[in-house]
């Protein structure tokens, strides 16, 4: 048998350096987590329930994810919204207190250095960035900030995600009031004696919450949430299959420094004022793509048979010419079959367009499909 999956870092691992541990490392091991390197951390890829079971449990009831490897930054100082707008194409000045927005740190070519969530916490802006990129993001942001604006890396904080249709009932019991949050809003709230910052957001396509807290209290809070009968611990494997079914991008795979938000189909995250005014890195490139359309587009891809197509598989048009590549692909446990996403030349991006996928030297039939692959169930009120 070739290619044993455990002997390579699934993503962003650093084989040289010592792996870091999140505040929940001990609990993950205690719960039977199968530990692997990820984004410089040793984290559980799955628990005894297994990836399929964890995935389905999250969609059916509720799952608890340790996402403490992600970077939590706070931006302080007067004029912080304008300063952050100089680094990304979202409208931050117009973000009401308690509201949050998905955006991308862009480079001068309009490429995506990282994607992130920005929350207006009232007295500061909260940024949640990818774990594998957090050191680079911090340096990039610090270098660009004007005098009087500071960025604080909350490296001691933990981040938990409680996701699934049963999440709101668990929160209503443990953190009354949190269940009233709408999708992409946030509030400070005490849970079991721990001061937390809770948002209605996630990376699964389900309703759910993300809970930030001091790392010293994370295990206590995780145990409290896991004590609810509905809640199972979920590892990185199901996190990836859930986000893929939800059509959500993974930085370093579906988006990177060479892909723009427009090519990635993230136009919805660039609000009108920013489209008109620009004023972010790569604005000319992105404005031109918004006006004329990009040369390539990220699309959902549905293989016709049972064989999954993985990252890197070439995408062909119906005549057999190469038109792009798969950037994420696998098996969707809730969808019940293989699914993927990737970039194709724009003329081939229409739903239903027949494609070929080159898998192990053979061309398998596929077509462009609508994303998400399973319906999103965000709580919009």
């Amino acid at each position, binding site marked *: 048998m*070739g*290619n044993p*999956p455990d002997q390579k870092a699934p993503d962003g691992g650093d084989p040289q350096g010592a792996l870091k541990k999140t505040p929940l490392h001990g609990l993950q091991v205690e719960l039977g987590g199968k530990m692997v390197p990820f984004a410089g951390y040793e984290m559980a890829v799955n628990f005894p329930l297994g990836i399929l079971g964890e995935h389905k449990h999250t969609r059916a009831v509720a799952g608890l994810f340790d996402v403490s490897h992600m970077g939590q930054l706070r931006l302080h100082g007067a004029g912080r919204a304008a300063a952050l707008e100089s680094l990304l194409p979202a409208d931050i000045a117009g973000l009401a207190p308690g509201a949050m927005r998905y955006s991308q740190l862009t480079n001068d070519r309009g490429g995506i250095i990282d994607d992130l969530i920005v929350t207006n916490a009232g007295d500061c802006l909260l940024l949640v960035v990818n774990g594998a990129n957090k050191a680079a993001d911090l340096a990039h942001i610090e270098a660009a900030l004007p005098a009087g604006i500071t960025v604080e890396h909350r490296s001691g904080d933990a981040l938990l995600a409680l996701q699934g249709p049963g999440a709101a009932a668990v929160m209503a019991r443990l953190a009354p009031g949190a269940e009233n949050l709408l999708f992409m809003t946030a509030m400070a709230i005490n849970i079991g004696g721990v001061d937390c910052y809770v948002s209605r957001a996630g990376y699964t396509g389900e309703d759910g919450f993300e809970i930030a807290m001091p790392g010293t209290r994370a295990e206590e809070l995780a145990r409290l949430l896991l004590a609810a009968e509905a809640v199972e611990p979920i590892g990185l*494997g199901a996190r990836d299959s859930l986000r893929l079914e939800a059509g959500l991008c993974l930085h370093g795979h579906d988006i990177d420094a060479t892909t723009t938000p427009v090519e990635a189909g993230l136009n919805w995250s660039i609000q009108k004022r920013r489209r008109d005014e620009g004023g972010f890195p790569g604005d000319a490139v992105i404005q031109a793509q918004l006006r004329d359309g990009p040369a390539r587009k990220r699309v959902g891809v549905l293989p016709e048979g049972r064989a*999954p197509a993985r990252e890197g598989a070439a995408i062909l048009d119906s005549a057999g010419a190469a038109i792009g590549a798969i950037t994420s692909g696998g098996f969707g446990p809730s969808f019940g079959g293989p699914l993927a996403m990737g970039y194709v030349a724009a003329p081939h991006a229409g739903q239903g367009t027949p494609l070929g996928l080159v898998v192990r030297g053979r061309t398998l039939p596929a077509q462009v499909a609508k994303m998400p692959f399973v319906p999103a169930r965000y709580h919009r009120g």
Partner: protein
Amino acid sequence: MSEIYYTEDHEWIEVEGDIGTCGISEFAQEQLGDIVYVELPEPGTEVSQSDEVAVVESVKAASEIYAPVSGEITESNEELVDDPARINADAMGDGWFFKIRLSDPKELDDLLDKATYEALTAGQH
């Protein structure tokens, strides 16, 4: 009386006469996790020892399965195509992949016996 051999790549072969039944080890199925797809060789195919003959995919990743010995594929376990989870449930039994008519039984000398294979994987859980 049949005998079972293993490869360092986690395939097993149980030999009875000149026919070997092949699959992946209990250790391998555990490492792979939930298996969602298999590709099996066509009966009649001639293969050489260590050729890629099958593919198994879990939710996590794809892995190639190598022929433990040379010979002709005589049968594939078609039940796995519709129910690949059989491999997780019974890797050494119902989860067999294919049968092969050995063309050079001396190749079995290259393989590991049960005790050696178990010693090899013991520290890797």
